[in-house]
């Protein structure tokens, strides 16, 4: 198991956002979490990556207890993530965005005197190309399209060579065409590198096309877990989720 979550609970001012969720993701698999708005998907992500602390429960990543670890340490263990609301460094160029992540990953961020431009040029360019932004290296990242920014975010996450990638709605706000391209890109990278992936998504088609296992979160609880076909056939799930949105 690359990631295990045991009976994790989190409440905000009495509102229980995540209520006793347990899951275990084997290495190299693609898992998706679905659920209506407010089901607790993003909260669960933030708990896993250490951005918020659990009230109860335990989190283990690669056999290491990460329950009380700060995000930067969890990241350094080999977990990468993207955020639901695009999370880049808007006034830096695309190149600088990705280069910063490479610098951090390679432990060069404590170099105080050498010009930063000379660091990891090739690695950075390769990553930019990998996420399909070859022509935008010198463009200020805040000015590129929303879809491109999502791709850039993926590049930032990949720069730290993660073993587990957490993507929070990687195609949110994208057009149908962009969605397909992005999912294809993500699928290709995951398979090439043998990464594990946990992602949340609104678009059912996207989920069923790429995920090997789907979990359904509803009001902070996991109500179902299974293959895409099983989830499609699950009546409870249809009631709380598919029925509501379609």
């Amino acid at each position, binding site marked *: 198991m690359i990631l295990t979550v045991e009976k994790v609970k989190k409440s905000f001012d009495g509102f229980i956002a995540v209520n006793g969720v347990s899951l275990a993701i084997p290495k190299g698999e693609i898992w998706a979490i679905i659920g209506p708005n407010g089901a607790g998907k993003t909260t669960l992500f933030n708990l896993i990556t250490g951005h918020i602390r659990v009230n109860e429960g335990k989190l283990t990543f690669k056999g290491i207890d990460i329950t009380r670890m700060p*995000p930067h340490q969890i990241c350094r263990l080999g977990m990468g993530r993207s955020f639901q609301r695009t999370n880049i460094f808007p006034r830096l160029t695309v190149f*600088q965005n990705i280069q910063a992540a490479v610098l951090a990953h390679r432990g060069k*961020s404590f170099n105080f005197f050498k010009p930063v431009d000379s660091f990891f040029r090739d690695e950075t360019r390769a990553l930019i190309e990998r996420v399909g932004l070859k022509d935008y290296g010198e463009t200020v990242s805040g000015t590129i399209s929303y879809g491109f920014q999502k791709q850039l975010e993926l590049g930032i996450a990949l*720069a730290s060579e993660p073993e587990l990638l957490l993507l929070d709605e990687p195609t949110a706000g994208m057009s149908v065409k962009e969605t397909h391209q992005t999912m294809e890109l993500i699928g290709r990278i995951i398979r090439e590198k043998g990464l594990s992936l946990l992602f949340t998504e609104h678009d059912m088609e996207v989920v069923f096309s790429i995920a090997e296992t789907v979990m359904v979160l509803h009001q902070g609880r996991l109500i179902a877990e299974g293959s895409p076909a099983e989830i499609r056939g699950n009546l409870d799930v249809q009631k709380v989720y598919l029925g509501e949105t379609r």
Partner: protein
Amino acid sequence: MLKRNWFLIIITLFLALLPCTESRFYIFLGTDILIMGLFAVSLNLLLGYTGLVSFGQAAYFGIGAYTCALLMKKAAVVFPLAFVAAALAGAIGALLIGFFCIRLTKIYFSMLTLAFSQIVWAIVFKWNSLTGGDTGLIGINFPQYLDSSTRFYYFTLGVVVVSLYILGKVVGSPFGRILATIRENPERTEFIGINVKLFQLIAFMISGFFAGISGALFGIFNHSLFPDLLYWPMSAEVLIMSILGGMYNFLGPAVGAAVMLYLRMLVTSYTQYWPLIMGTILALLLFFFPGGIVGFLKSQRIFAKGKR
């Protein structure tokens, strides 16, 4: 880049030749601008580069000034040692204060930096036996070998150029780039594997170090110190200089210091309403040229587009 280097060489030559005017007025103003310019650039490491609106920069300036002056006057420490001690004291002061401040964000962070600097002010103000309190610390002399305003000017110029060179290296290094990512997005920076608070704290110390240097220069330059230089308007003034000159440019704050000090000198000889004029200039600038003076000039392509 080339064009930018030429620009720097011209400025440095101009500053180096300034004493040839043999005008006490310009030498005095030049020294003042150099000292405040370094102070403003040191603040801008936090403000423009790391995205931390520190409202208590006067504390490190004051700590540097008093450390240098007290060591020389009360403990008869030689100037070079006292000077280095001032820089270190500024860094240590920033470490202690920063340690608490970085635990808060945004306006709460700014208010806490203000609160701490006021505490430092209160200590200096009340500790009569050591600092002289409100009557100040009078009779801090130039060290013998710097005993003329021209010599002290050159000494200041040397210290400021070296300091700015080092600071420039730091902001252009990987460390500096990480500071920029923290300014842009601390949450994301944390999840590229960076201990954001540690980086912020180091930035605080570097900033305090150079603020301490400028404070030490200031004390000797004025031959006296008063608690006023730790009081909050001093912190506000250096913030205004940075914003006036342009906080997204390395030398912007120094340009801001130069313009502000020169204008003040000019305006106060005609009228007592300097704060009114300063306020108007600042308000207009914020509305029409939010990038400050340097930001505006750059957008007009008067200078080559240098790197931030």
